[in-house]
C-alpha cells in the first residue's frame, strides 16, 4: 500500500467532474449491467411466461376456436404474472446491500433515479415478454392482425405493469411474506390493464376496431407515468425510515 504519506489535501484532485451525465441513464445502465451478470434470474421469468401459456391449452383442450377465445386472456395473464416475478428484485438487493440508501441520499431527485430503475425493469422483464408474445400467440391460432394487436397492447401495457408494480415493490421492501403480499397488493391494480389489453385483441378477433382499447391503455400508461415515480419515491422513503 503506497501513498500513506501523501498530503491529504490532495483530495481535490480526485473529484469527479460534475453535472455532465444523466442520473437516469446511469441508473438504467447500472441495472442493465447487473441483470446481464445475473442472466439466470432474468431468463427464469421468461420461461415462466412460456410455461404458463402452455399450461392452459393443456388444461382446457386443443380446439382452435376455444384457444382463440382464451388466447388473449391467457397471454395477458401470463405477462402479468411474469412481470410480477421480477418485481421483488427491483429494490430488494439494493436495499440489502445499502446502495438504496445511497440513492435516496443522492443529490439527484429520487423520482428520476426511480424512473431509471423502473425503465431497467421493463427492459429486462417486460420487453422480452412483448417480443415473445407473438410467437406464443401462434400456439393459440391467432391471426396476424390479432398478433399485432396483442404485441402493441403489451408494448403499451407492460410499462404500466412495471410502473404500478414498483409501488408495490417499494411498499413491501423487507417485509415478511413479501412475494405473496406483493401479489395481493399489485394484482388488483393490474386489472384495468388486463381488461383493456386482452379486450383489444378480442375486439380485433371479432372484426372490431381495437383502437379504443389501445387508447385507453395509452391513457393508463400516461397516468401511471405521472403517479408511479412519486408514489414509489414516497414508499421508498417510508420503507427506509
Amino acid at each position: 500500500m503506497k501513498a500513506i504519506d501523501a498530503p491529504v489535501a490532495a483530495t481535490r484532485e480526485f473529484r469527479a467532474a460534475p453535472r455532465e451525465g444523466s442520473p437516469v441513464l446511469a441508473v438504467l445502465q447500472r441495472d442493465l449491467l447487473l441483470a446481464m451478470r445475473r442472466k439466470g434470474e432474468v431468463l427464469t421469468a421468461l420461461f415462466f411466461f412460456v410455461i404458463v401459456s402452455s399450461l392452459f391449452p393443456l388444461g382446457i383442450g386443443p380446439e382452435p376456436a376455444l384457444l382463440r377465445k382464451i388466447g388473449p386472456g391467457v397471454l395477458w395473464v401470463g405477462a402479468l404474472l411474469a412481470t410480477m416475478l421480477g418485481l421483488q428484485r427491483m429494490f430488494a438487493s439494493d436495499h440489502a446491500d445499502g446502495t438504496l440508501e445511497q440513492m435516496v441520499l443522492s443529490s439527484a431527485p429520487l423520482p428520476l433515479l426511480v424512473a431509471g430503475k423502473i425503465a431497467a425493469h421493463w427492459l429486462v422483464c417486460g420487453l422480452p415478454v412483448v417480443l415473445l408474445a407473438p410467437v406464443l400467440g401462434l400456439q393459440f391460432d391467432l391471426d396476424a392482425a390479432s398478433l399485432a394487436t396483442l404485441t402493441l397492447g403489451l408494448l403499451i401495457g407492460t410499462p404500466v405493469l412495471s410502473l404500478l408494480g414498483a409501488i408495490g415493490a417499494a411498499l413491501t421492501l423487507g417485509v415478511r411474506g413479501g412475494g405473496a403480499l406483493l401479489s395481493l397488493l399489485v394484482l388488483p391494480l393490474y386489472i384495468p390493464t388486463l381488461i383493456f389489453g386482452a379486450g383489444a385483441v378480442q375486439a380485433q378477433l371479432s372484426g372490431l376496431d381495437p383502437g379504443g382499447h389501445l387508447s385507453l391503455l395509452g391513457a393508463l400508461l400516461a397516468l401511471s407515468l405521472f403517479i408511479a415515480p412519486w408514489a414509489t419515491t414516497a414508499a421508498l422513503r417510508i420503507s427506509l425510515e
Partner: protein
Amino acid sequence: MLSAHHLSCVRGHRPLFSGLAFRVEPGSWTQVRGANGSGKTSLLRLLAGLARPDEGEVRWHGAAIGGEDFRRALMYLGHGAAVKEDLTASENLGFAAGAEGATLSRERAAEALARFGLAGREDLPVRHLSAGQKRRVLLARTLTRPAQLWILDEPFTALDGKAVEVLAQLVAGHVAGGGMAVLTSHQPIPLPGGQVVEL
C-alpha cells in the same frame, strides 16, 4: 453547521433517546458514543435525513435538512458496504458518481481506490474482495465526491492498521479544511479533538 434540536427517537415502544441537542461546527468532528443498541445508528440516520425524528428536528445552516443542497453536501456511509457485489470496484464508483449526474473516469477511480490499497483490484467483482476491502471501496468515495458533511457509521470496522491510518488522515484533512464529520466507532478514534455525544 449541523444542529440537532430536542431530538427523540422511539423504536417500537422503547424510547432510544430524547431531548438530544448538539451542534457540529465547520472544522470540527463529533463522535457519537453509546452501548450497543443505544441508538447510534438511528441517530446518524436521523442526521442524514433517512429517518424522521419522533420529536425535534435537525437543521443544516438553520434550515430543515433533506433538500438538494443538503444532500449534495452530505456523504453518508452506513453499516452496509453499499457496493454492488456483481460490479467491479471501479464500476461501483463510476455508477455512484453517475447517479448524481457526474462522470468519473476509470483513471481517477483507479487512483482513488489505490489510495485505499486496492490498486490492481479495481476490476475484480466486489464479491471477490474481503470484508475490509469492500469497506474500502466505499470509503474511496470520499475521495471522488466533495462533501462538506461526512456522516460515517462505524467506518473503521474491518479495516487493518494501515487503512485506519489512511482514513484517519482523510478525516483529519477534511476537518482541517473546514469540513464536518460525525462518526461512531467501537474502537478508539485516532483523531485529535472532537466533541462527544453520549447516548
